């Protein structure tokens, strides 16, 4: 897997797990793949996955089981979604705003473009 940017890999893995929880691929209460299973899937060092799991546990997205391993924590999807939304506003959206300003877009133009996009994507889904 190519992780692209300079973000540490364990944070990429954090995002991947958060995304799987938000999308419902992993449900609350489900067992999370073992460190080794996810390391094999993502082709990374198991200790890197361990670091990601520590961070995910601190973030309240996963919790340790009584035996060995982790499960998706209660309320994880809502928490992960909230976190992703905040990160989107802080990082991607602020970058987008800067670029919009530089190119001279007005809020009205953007609103119109976004409305068109919503209409089209709704039609496509019908």
């Amino acid at each position: 897997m190519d992780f692209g940017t300079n973000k540490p890999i364990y944070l990429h893995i954090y995002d991947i797990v958060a995304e799987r929880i938000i999308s419902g691929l992993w449900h609350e209460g489900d067992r999370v793949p073992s460190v080794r299973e996810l390391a094999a899937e993502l082709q990374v060092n198991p200790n890197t996955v361990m670091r990601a799991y520590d961070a995910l546990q601190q973030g309240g997205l996963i919790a340790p089981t009584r035996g060995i391993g982790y499960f998706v924590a209660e309320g994880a999807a809502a928490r992960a979604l909230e976190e992703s939304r905040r990160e989107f506003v802080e990082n991607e959206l602020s970058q987008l705003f800067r670029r919009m300003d530089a190119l001279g877009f007005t809020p009205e133009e953007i609103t119109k473009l976004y409305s068109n996009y919503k209409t089209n994507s709704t039609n496509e889904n019908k």
Partner: protein
Amino acid sequence: MITVKNLTFHYRGKNHLYRDFSLHIERGGIYGLLGSNGIGKSTLLKLMCGLLSPDAGEVNLFGRRSRTRSVELLSDIFLVPEEFELPKVTLGEFVRLTTPFYPSFDHSFLAEALRRFEVGMDEEFHSMSMGQRKKAYIAFAMAAKTSLLLLDEPTNGLDITSKATFRSLLAEWATPERTAIISTHQVREVANMFDHIVIIDHKGLVVDSSVYEISERLKFSVESSADGALYSQSTLGGYATVRENVDGSESNPDIELLFGAATTAREEIIRILNPSTNH
């Protein structure tokens, strides 16, 4: 686990590859052993497993001289050289004949690795392509589940999907009790697998740090200017740079850039990473 102490070594009629070289490797983890062509990486692997004798100094494995090559020692280490000869038998026969030497041999791991590498047990080594033979031997080496696994350029000759399979298998192979040392020039192909990086040059040890320590002490980023960087490479969108990490930022160590920095800014890299031993 491995202690190289004041090692001096040269091949007959050649210049010294190592002079008073020391290195300690702990049990557990995947080590990347990097260095320019001809610097002596393969030689070091051979010295570690006792295939070569040091001129002076010691190489100890599990607290014993590796050169003794005792049965106990040999049953717990495995070296996959870059190029190797295998007997004129099928893989199945090879497994039957040689697994008794490896008490921890994991037959189900082998079966799974062969399935994913698409290599058959009834194939003769000599009728296999170079890549197939390499996959068969790597699968066997991992399945041996030795405490120490030495891999010399393991991804050379492997096709694209096999390289991915190799990384995946290595992640499954790794435990806190097992150590792998991978010597390679194909850093990008295995960079995400490393716990620890060792870089050697003609003067000795330059880098001997965990990936975590490297990311704490060095900062890797793409910037519009490379001014004051320890090392940089021109890239899409600016310069990929290595600098001392002074603002506590977290970046992903780019091992290729680290290698460049270790070559061009050797003393600064040693100062910043402060390896336990240097020469």
